[in-house]
């Protein structure tokens, strides 16, 4: 069947077939998820055999709604967010057939958690300045032909979920003599390989959600290189574009997200109300609702195949709103706002905004404008790519990486 012939009705009937062959009530979670993947209903826009049907992306919502209504188990996207949102689309776009078959299924099932080994102490906003080295074995002796494994040395930082991940997407420098964007290569890194050391990095909330990762003589087979040698930046851009979409693109109901606990406290606890807080709450409530509608409109545009530039702004909006709303929540709670749940060092598997207290939300939301590209960098992107304003003068693009100021 061709993609054009795949209609919402057709997908609904496929969902019904899946449900009757594997009734969620009597089927084990893992088994159901496998069957769903094999039926092409995991991500319908992926090719057949890889969890999809080559259908328009917009039809995924139809499938999700049907499955949710039937009480089918989900694949816990929060735990496997980096894999789903970033590794998968990159592997789909650049991977060999073998890589796609090897990695996509366990990734979608949540059997293999992924992390992102991109940022380094010296390369954050300026990610292309990264210095982790990957040298082809035998390269030094036999002038590049090699053909053996890659050997990786360097340090990554802020790696979320490195402590639970089985695989990592990794970018490393393969030619320091070239300008910084040109000498980078993209790899899939086995987190259990010898030489990979993960150290917890405690953060402002008291938890160690992210990590430092030290790579010492880590061997990566050439079969785990994604894309061409030296083309890693182009591959990474695919990942980064998808990262922003997946961070800002969540579908939320009215009064979902951060505004929910504040609105609930306001309704349940009249003694906390003041005129000042009332005005601020209403302002933020309206902004949160408008942000939701902007996201909804964006999705409708995408479904019609005319993506608008608003997408670049969604992560900016959510970061700002999350921070303002959680800040207001701490104030609203008065005496309770002075308290914190628990400062014990923990290494959580997922980031859980709603199950925690207001103080945690306030502190964790500070990361929303840093992780996945800072708000300043995103504003630069909007100014330059959406509004077409000239970029700041740059002298780093043509300089050999090894000659950059650090």
């Amino acid at each position, binding site marked *: 069947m061709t993609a054009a012939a795949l209609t919402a009705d057709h997908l609904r009937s496929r969902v019904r077939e899946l449900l009757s062959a594997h009734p969620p009530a009597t089927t084990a979670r893992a088994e159901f998820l496998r069957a769903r993947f094999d039926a092409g209903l995991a991500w319908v826009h992926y090719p057949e055999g890889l969890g999809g049907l080559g259908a328009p992306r917009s039809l995924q919502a139809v499938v999700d709604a049907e499955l949710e209504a039937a009480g089918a188990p989900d694949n816990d996207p929060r735990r496997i967010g980096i894999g789903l949102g970033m590794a998968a689309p990159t592997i789909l776009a650049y991977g060999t057939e073998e890589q796609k078959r090897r990695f996509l299924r366990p990734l979608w099932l949540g059997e293999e958690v992924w992390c992102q080994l991109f940022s380094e102490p010296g390369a954050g906003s300026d990610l292309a300045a990264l210095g982790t080295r990957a040298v082809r074995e035998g390269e030094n002796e036999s002038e590049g032909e090699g053909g053996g494994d890659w050997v990786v040395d360097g340090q990554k930082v802020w790696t979320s979920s490195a402590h639970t991940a089985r695989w990592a997407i990794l970018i490393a420098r393969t030619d320091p003599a070239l300008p910084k964007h040109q000498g980078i290569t993209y790899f899939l890194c086995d987190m259990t390989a010898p030489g990979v050391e993960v150290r917890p990095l405690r953060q402002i909330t008291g938890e160690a959600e992210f990590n430092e990762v030290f790579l010492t003589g880590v061997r990566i087979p050439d079969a785990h290189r994604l894309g061409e040698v030296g083309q890693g930046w182009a591959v990474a851009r695919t990942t980064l574009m998808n990262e922003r979409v997946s961070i800002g693109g969540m579908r939320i109901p009215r009064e979902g997200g951060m505004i929910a606990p504040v609105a609930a406290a306001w309704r349940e606890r009249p003694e906390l109300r003041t005129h000042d807080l009332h005005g601020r709450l209403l302002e933020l409530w309206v902004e949160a609702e408008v942000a939701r509608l902007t996201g909804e409109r964006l999705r409708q545009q995408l479904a019609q195949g005319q993506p608008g530039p608003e997408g670049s702004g969604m992560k900016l909006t959510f970061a700002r709103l999350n921070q303002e709303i959680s800040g207001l929540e701490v104030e609203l709670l008065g005496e309770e706002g002075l308290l914190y749940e628990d400062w014990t060092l923990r290494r959580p598997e997922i980031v859980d905004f709603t199950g925690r207290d207001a103080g945690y939300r306030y502190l964790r939301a500070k990361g929303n404008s840093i992780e996945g590209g800072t708000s300043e960098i995103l504003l630069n992107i909007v100014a330059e790519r959406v509004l077409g304003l000239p970029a700041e003068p740059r002298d*780093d693009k043509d300089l050999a990486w090894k000659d950059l100021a650090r």
Partner: protein
Amino acid sequence: MSSPAAAPLDLLYSETEEELRTAVRSLLAARSAPAAVLARIEAGGPHDPELWRVLAAEIGTAGLLVPEKLGGQGAGHREAAVVLEELGRAAAPVPYLTSAVLATEILLGCESAESADLLRELAAGRSVCVPALPLTLAPGAPLPAPVRDSGGGSLGGSVGSVADAVCPDVLLVLADTGLYAVPADAAGVSRTPLVALDLTRPLAAVHLDGAAGTLLADPATARAAIAGALLSGAGLLASEQLGIAEWCLTETVAYLRTRHQFNRPLGSFQALKHRLARLWLDVASARAAARAAADALATGAADAPLTVAVAQAYCSGVAVRAAEECVQLHGGIGMTWEHPAHLYLKRAKADSLALGTAGHHRGLVADFAELPAP
């Protein structure tokens, strides 16, 4: 506006004030650098009794508000404000605001022989005394009355979110029959440490069950004394907030001058330059507001309540914003536990709730400036 025309305020620092600042700053730099504060927090508690002894007794900061005849320095709010600026700059965990400002002001308002004795102890740095009142209690707000005297000064009741209540020798307890000084280790007194958002100003709930204390003042005197103390506490807190904001600005500027991305110092990006310049402007304004509050309190200006409300309405927000900018502009480093930015963010946010939120103080401005709500 019917309130008297504003008296001329002295908004600068005197030479003696600068000398005091130097002494406090060098003590804190040597003994309470952010790394040391964090190490003490990890080791179980942020307080350093030896640091407090030197600050309170040797440098003599605890007695700044206490008249010389009671063993104090006979200085005033302007000097105490300078100390608080430095304590804010260091996010220093010492019971200065609670003991040397709030408790001291309450005791000064009691004007009894018993309160004079206690003031001598506080001024000499021999004793720490904190009011058993919630830190969020604001000037102009109704005073809570959770503690009852069941006869003959036998006190019962609980107060939550009492700042620095983990370390004092004496608690000042407002009961229905008056104000009592209750030794913290007296029978019938217990304190439950709370997990506080601000790691540098510990909180505890205080429980009294048949505890006995010394009567310091009758209910009317006590309430007036507390109201005065809250006013001066709120006014001086603005200086702590100024200190926090200054540290955050200075530290961020220093970081952006040296951190390179895109082959240049981050501070050379115009987007960041403008932000820091705006923040600098806010900090400069916060300094004027905080100094005005300190001076109005020192001179007993008739419009001191308005000046204090203006300072709180303004400085709370500047401190929080400076700390938020500090975290943001340090990028990933700012989100880590190792970097002290979080100590300042937590202190600034907790300070924005302490002694009345900016919203509460804007409400007071509405009253004083006769700009009533609709």
